Structure formats: structure tokens, C-alpha cells
């Protein structure tokens, strides 16, 4: 089959690879119909995630058609159309039984930091991802959700990751009605966090980014106020001032380890690798949220550590909540929102590419060219 493969930092190519096969009786093999390029794929591309091996196929947001079925799979059959959560979850372990499917302990031998994830290095289990013609999907009766008849793949594609992730981000902010919410990062996850904050009854939502086209998109897509942090001097003081000198009730980090805004963190984290990326946004969140406020972190940070002002967080009495999204539990609820027209996930797709042009898509997305918000690959064309 044809698949995107990692060739080293900043280099990917599309090449021939062996087809995936059933390796466990609860597996299926999917023919991939749509595959998103996620902001967190850029951390892999940029060589920031440990144990990203040459030849790895990225891609943890995908839909597909069941092509081959393992002996113990009972809920799916050949030809079913499904959308697949990015976490690989057994459904029976200590964590899955408690709804924490993003923390499944039965799919990742490489580390305890996360469950297995498709196409996200051997640190999350060593599974190839969906930026390919075909992909192996373990625990097929637990994770994948059948796509309702009459819905196209792109309408539900983002139930695989970024929509539940954005929703969980707002949920972890513990919005109970009328709160002021600042979302750092106006990328796809941030946009869905903004929409979700409204759904939960936020009183005011402000997006912070430095890319004018993304802020403009956030204003249109999520009806939020926006702040360009490169134009306001000190962003912490600006946000405090915006919220009566105290700061917002809730801050959401939808940026992660490659944040702009602090030369020191970029040198230490991205240049010298003395910390796992640049935790600039966590620092901003801790410093600008009001005392007793909530911080929700769904931006991705790598192991082993980051320099963040935890003493300030303690003294301000903050609540910090974070996790990989427990994607599967959100899918039915968010599907209903899509069907009722409350969220139109497809509206964030700005670029579509055939699989063979995936390296161009990565370049465009990574360099934020051409007003790019979200790229989607079509491994089998428009079908």
C-alpha cells in the first residue's frame, strides 16, 4: 500500500509499505477514506516526540471502511463505515472501566504516559497510523463508531480527536454558567474548545493567538473576541486588565509544546531540549487566570519535564485539570450536536489533498501558509 512515512525531523515522504494485517483476533483492517493532519502530528514531524522511528506512518484522525475482520470481532463487518477514536482502548482495564479510555493500560508497552495511539511513535505503542491507504485497528468492537447512513465521512471525521478534545477542554474548565473563558490557540482544537465553552454556558470567550488569519477565523467560526498576543505587549497584564484586573475564570491551553511567545522557552525546550518543548502557555495560564480559577490543559507536552511556575499555581489556589481526551465517551453526544447543527466540524477544513501530496500538506500546515486551518488527506480520492 501507499503510506506517508517519517524520514527524520522535518522530512516525510509517501512510499510503498506492506499492507497491515490482522495481528490480534479483536483487530480489523480499515480502508482509509479520510485522514486529518493534526497539530500534534507536527510535534512528531519536528522530532520532538521520543522514539519516533524512521518509517513511522502518522495519522490518528481517520474514517474508513472495514476491509478485513478479526476472528473475535462481532460488532463490525466488512463494508461498515466507521470513525475511529485516536486512543486505542481495550474497554476492560482499570482505566477504561472508569471511562478513562485515554489512559488504557492494555495497548502501550512503551510507557505509562498514555494509552496506545495510532501513528504517534513507540512512546504511544508503536502502531502505524491512518495517513495511508489501509490501517490496522485493534479492539475494533470498543473504539470505532459506525457512521450513520446519510452522513458523509468529513462531517464526523473530527469525532476521532479534535472535537472531543476541544469539548473535554471546556468541560475540564468546569464551566457552570456565565464564566469568562480564555482559550490560548486558535487552531482546530482551540476552535472546538471555544464552541464547546458556549455550549456549556460561558459568559464571555476570548481567543488568544498571534496569527491574524486564525483570529479572524475564530471570530467567524466561534463568535469570540480575539487578542493577538504579539500586539499587546505583556499578554498576562493585558488579559488581567480585560477581566477587571483579576484575570479570567478559566484558561484553556490548546497550544502545547511548540508555543511562540517566549524566546527563553523556545531556546531551552525546542533548541537545547533541556525541557520538553516550550510550556509558555501553561506559564501564561497560571499567571493570568484569577485566583481560585481553573486551568485546562489539552495541548500536548512530552516527557520528561517542563519549567512551569507551580508555586504560583499553589499560592493562587488554582485547579489544574488535564488529560488526553477520553474520546469514545464523547462521540455519541457530539454526533448529536453535529446532527442538530450546533457544531459544523467540516467547516474548519480549508485544504484537501490526495495521499501522494501529503508532504506538501505537512509543509503548508506547518508553515501556516495559505490561510490553513485544517488539512485532510484522501487516500482513495473523493470516494
Amino acid at each position: 500500500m501507499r503510506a506517508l512515512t517519517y524520514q527524520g525531523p522535518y522530512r516525510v515522504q509517501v512510499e510503498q509499505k506492506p499492507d497491515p494485517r490482522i495481528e490480534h483476533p479483536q483487530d480489523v483492517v480499515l480502508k482509509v477514506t479520510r485522514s486529518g493532519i493534526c497539530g500534534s502530528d507536527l510535534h512528531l514531524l519536528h522530532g520532538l516526540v521520543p522514539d519516533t522511528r524512521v518509517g513511522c506512518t502518522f495519522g490518528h484522525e481517520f474514517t474508513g471502511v472495514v476491509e478485513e475482520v478479526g476472528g473475535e470481532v462481532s460488532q463490525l463487518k466488512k463494508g461498515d463505515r466507521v470513525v475511529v477514536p485516536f486512543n486505542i482502548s481495550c474497554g476492560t482495564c482499570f482505566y477504561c472501566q472508569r471511562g478513562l479510555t485515554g489512559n488504557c493500560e492494555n495497548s502501550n508497552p512503551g510507557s505509562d504516559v498514555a494509552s496506545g495511539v495510532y501513528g504517534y511513535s513507540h512512546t504511544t505503542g508503536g502502531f502505524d497510523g491512518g495517513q495511508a491507504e489501509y490501517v490496522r485497528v485493534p479492539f475494533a468492537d470498543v473504539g470505532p463508531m459506525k457512521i450513520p447512513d446519510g452522513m458523509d465521512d468529513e462531517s464526523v471525521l473530527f469525532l476521532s480527536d479534535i472535537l472531543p478534545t476541544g469539548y473535554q477542554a471546556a468541560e475540564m474548565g468546569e464551566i457552570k454558567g456565565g464564566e469568562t473563558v480564555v482559550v490560548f490557540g486558535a487552531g482546530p482544537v482551540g476552535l472546538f474548545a471555544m464552541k464547546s465553552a458556549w455550549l456549556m454556558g460561558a459568559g464571555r470567550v476570548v481567543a488568544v493567538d498571534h496569527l491574524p488569519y486564525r483570529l479572524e477565523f475564530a471570530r467567524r467560526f466561534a463568535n469570540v473576541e480575539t487578542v493577538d498576543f504579539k500586539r499587546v505587549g505583556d499578554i498576562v497584564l493585558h488579559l488581567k486588565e480585560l477581566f477587571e484586573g483579576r484575570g479570567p475564570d478559566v484558561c484553556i491551553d490548546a497550544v502545547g509544546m511548540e508555543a511562540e511567545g517566549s524566546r527563553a522557552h523556545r531556546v531551552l525546550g525546542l533548541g537545547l531540549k533541556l525541557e520538553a518543548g516550550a510550556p509558555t502557555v501553561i506559564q501564561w495560564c497560571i499567571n493570568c487566570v484569577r485566583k481560585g480559577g481553573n486551568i485546562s490543559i489539552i495541548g500536548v507536552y512530552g516527557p520528561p519535564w517542563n519549567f512551569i511556575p507551580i508555586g504560583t499555581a499553589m499560592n493562587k489556589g488554582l485547579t489544574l485539570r488535564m488529560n488526553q481526551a477520553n474520546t469514545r465517551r464523547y462521540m455519541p453526544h457530539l454526533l448529536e450536536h453535529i446532527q442538530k447543527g450546533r457544531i459544523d466540524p467540516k467547516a474548519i477544513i480549508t485544504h484537501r489533498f490526495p495521499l501522494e501530496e501529503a508532504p506538501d500538506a505537512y509543509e503548508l500546515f506547518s508553515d501556516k501558509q495559505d490561510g490553513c486551518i485544517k488539512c485532510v488527506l484522501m487516500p482513495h480520492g473523493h470516494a
Partner: protein
Amino acid sequence: MPQKTPRKPGAAKPRAKSKPKPTDIAVDLDPSQRPGVPMETAPQPLAGARVPIASQHADVPVYKHAGRKQMPPVFGTAQPPRGLSGLLRRAAYAKPDHHPGHWVLLLLADRVDVWEHRVKRSLPWAAPSAVVLAAGLMWRARRA
């Protein structure tokens, strides 16, 4: 419940500045209706889950970090370790994942892996070029 930041008397209602669509407002206001509240639920298997889970077999080396007692029943078998980078990865996984050395060795292995592949990719043209160059140097040395 956290207290909301009070607004200045007479200030415009913030919502007026960023008005959402009417259909978007507060349909999930009640936390008990949100799928992830509470984040940790009473234990029960997920729909479709099957026990016991058969153990996957692999015909390639797959490492687990030293902090885990057993291999999980399911794992990826993509890109098995090989070469010098494979040895470095084996050393990394001999350490539990809370040891910084585990991650430092993996990052080092990643860089070595890239160079191994570059050398391997260059062999089809580099090896003949090296032979020709060596032959040329020997011929020149004999003439001198």
C-alpha cells in the same frame, strides 16, 4: 462552585461583544448531562468489550519499559528496532519511563536512526563511488 468575575457596574454585558448563535448557547449547561462529568465513573466494562483478551504474538522484537511487569495484550509491531539505534532503544527500555535517562536515550536513538537510514539510502550510489575513488587513488599512487 467557582465564583464568577463580577462585571463593572454599568459596563456593557460581555456577551454582547461576542454573541454566539442562539442555538449554541448553554445547551450543555447542566454538568450532569456532559459525557465526561465526572471524569472518572463507577467501574463497568465498555460496550463491545470482550474478556479475557487474547495475547498478541509478535515475530519482531517489541520493548516494554522496565516499569511494566508484563507486556499488554495488544501492541504495535511497526518499525522494529534494528542497528545501533535499536541497541540504544533496548538500553532505554531497560529503564523505567520515570527515569530521565529513558527519554534521553530514546531521543539519541532517534537521531542515530535517521543517520543510519541516510547512510543506507546513500549506499547504492555511495558504495560504487567509493570503489571508483579508491581504485583511482590506488592507480595514481602506483604511477607515482
